């Protein structure tokens, strides 16, 4: 084999392997990108500041609650109230009612999403049943709470937003 051929071949194989790695690198890149832009409605978690000195804005925003169950999970999920009027800058609590309709214990995981997408950057949760896996015993019904705040910086043209949860069957080994 000519020396030139060998060199070209090696370089190209290396390039192919790098591109295989790039495929995997797209996973964290995508997450970072979504975090920064809030594109896929993923919401962020904050530590609540108890002695808030900042004034609450006098704006009112409507928050609507939505609930879905993935097809693989024999549960029912519904929000206690369909919507709420909130003031940005103040913490609120909303409750969801979750029911297991089979007599077996099942672990589920709720995945939140906010729309419009832009609003997800300004929707902060200090406490949420979606932070961890949830176990429901056979036929058990539970109330689950989310504590949230809408940031005062929320753009003016957003007058209402939707918080949506989908409960999935938790994968073994995932939390």
């Amino acid at each position, binding site marked *: 084999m000519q020396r030139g051929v060998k060199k070209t071949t090696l370089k190209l194989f290396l390039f192919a392997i790098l591109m295989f790695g790039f495929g995997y690198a797209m*996973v964290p890149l995508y997450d970072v990108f979504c975090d920064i832009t809030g594109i896929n409605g993923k919401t962020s978690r904050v530590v609540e500041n108890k002695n808030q000195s900042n004034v609450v804005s006098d704006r009112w925003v409507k928050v609507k609650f939505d609930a879905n169950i993935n097809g693989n999970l024999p549960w029912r999920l519904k929000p206690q109230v369909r919507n709420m009027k909130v003031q940005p800058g103040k913490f609120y609590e909303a409750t969801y009612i979750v029911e297991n309709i089979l007599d077996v214990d099942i672990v589920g995981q709720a995945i939140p999403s906010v729309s419009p997408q832009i609003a997800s950057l300004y929707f902060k949760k200090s406490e949420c049943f979606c932070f961890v896996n949830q176990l429901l015993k056979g036929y058990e019904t539970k109330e689950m709470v989310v504590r949230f705040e809408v940031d005062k910086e929320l753009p003016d043209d957003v007058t209402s937003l939707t918080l949506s949860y989908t409960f999935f069957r938790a994968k073994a080994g995932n939390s």
Partner: protein
Amino acid sequence: MSTLAHDDHHDHKPTGLKRWFFSTNHKDIGTLYLIFALVMFFVGGSMAMIIRAELFQPGLQFVDPQFYNSMVTVHALIMIFGAVMPAGVGLANWMIPLMVGAPDMALPRMNNMSFWILPFAFALLISTLFMEGGGPAGGWTMYPPLVLQTGNAFPFLIFAIHFLGVSSIMGAINIIATVFNMRAPGMTLMKMPLFVWTWVITSFLLIASLPVLAGGVTMLLTDKYFGTSFFDAAGGGDPVLFQHIFWFFGHPEVYILALPAFGIVSQVIPAFARKPLFGYASMVYATASIAILSFFVWAHHMFTVGLPIKGELFFMYATMLIAVPTGVKVFNWIATMWKGAMTFETPMLFSIAFVILFTIGGFSGLMLGITPVDFQYHDTYFVVAHFHYVLLTGAIFALMSAVYYWLPKWTGYMYDERLGKIHFWLSLISSNVLFFPQHFLGLAGMPRRIPDYNIQFADFNAISSIGGFAYGITQLLFVYIVIKCALGGKKAKPRVWEGAKGLEWTVPSPAPFHTFETPPKLTKEMLEH
């Protein structure tokens, strides 16, 4: 073939089965690729016939929906990875060494391997149709979570894709290594025939994009069997991520299918217009820009997944931008024909049809690239019409053109020109009857990938199916023409077409088993395009 080898003094070749299984000769491997592609064209084609038979009338007639879906899925995979890509690689194997004055491909043994992986991979893929749970039926795009419901076929699908990827990457490396290292002295890069250029660029696309697909399908595999959650929302993943990975590969892939076709047409049109290719350098640069841009437009396949508005705009404008170099190429082909002394032999007919029909496909592509209207067109028959114009009347027509153009060089005999013309006209008419009505079906709202439809779509579907059957039968004529030409006919001269330029026409027809063992002395005339 074994008897021939005896009275052959300077042209030694191995005999019998050994010649084909262990072949390291670029011409033999090229032939193997081309025959394999033709077989796959018919296997994938029979699946298309099943699809069109089912769609001939509304209601469910022949197959159950699950099987219908697996036909749609496997048809696409076979046509893309089994027919168009191997046919292109076959042509590259046969012609590139002849065109650049090299004795063989740079890596002959790897060449043998990259071919023989293919029959194995497709045996895996096709065997899934007979497995419990049926073949893969979630579409060739393999979107999760749907594709994860595939039965036992699932790992076979993934491994088949891995094999195909490995084969194509090895083929691509071989092509680049050949062109970069084995050109005859005097054959500078900007003197190479355009077909060679398009294949070099295609090879880079292959090496850059196929590993990403391999990674994506590996993630599917581990999601299903090893508890990872790349695309599983329950574990913090996101199914939309798969679409990004897939189309990061997928859009360059459509140019992997299209660029070699551009190369073929850029050889054929000057030969029959008896004029040099108009704007050679601009053709090279246009091809390279298309290739680079193709990595920045992928999300035009995903306008409806809920991208942020800025993303929609970016991908819309990038998509519009890619039409510019494509337009440059179309204008160059037309300018090459302008005031040329044209004759219309079969290769030229297929190439001219390519220019017109590929452009129609490009226009429907532009329509699809406009974000707001794609919300109407997405996942309808309009998309089906679009990609069949660029792939069937585009890529496949160009491949047909190439076969007619070089067949006399391969076999040493002229094909039957009258039959070739009949093949062309029947293909042209039937493919348009087949695909043109699908534009209207899509605009009227008929979704793709369904076995049944509302009766308002019945007439156009019936017309489309008739065109489909006619196109299918017509291709049997092609096989007859090729076999007839391989067996005998009028002897072909070394320069088969009087206007054809390039080194491949300086060797006898049929091209001897070994050519350019010592690098040819290139004259100025030999380097003309």
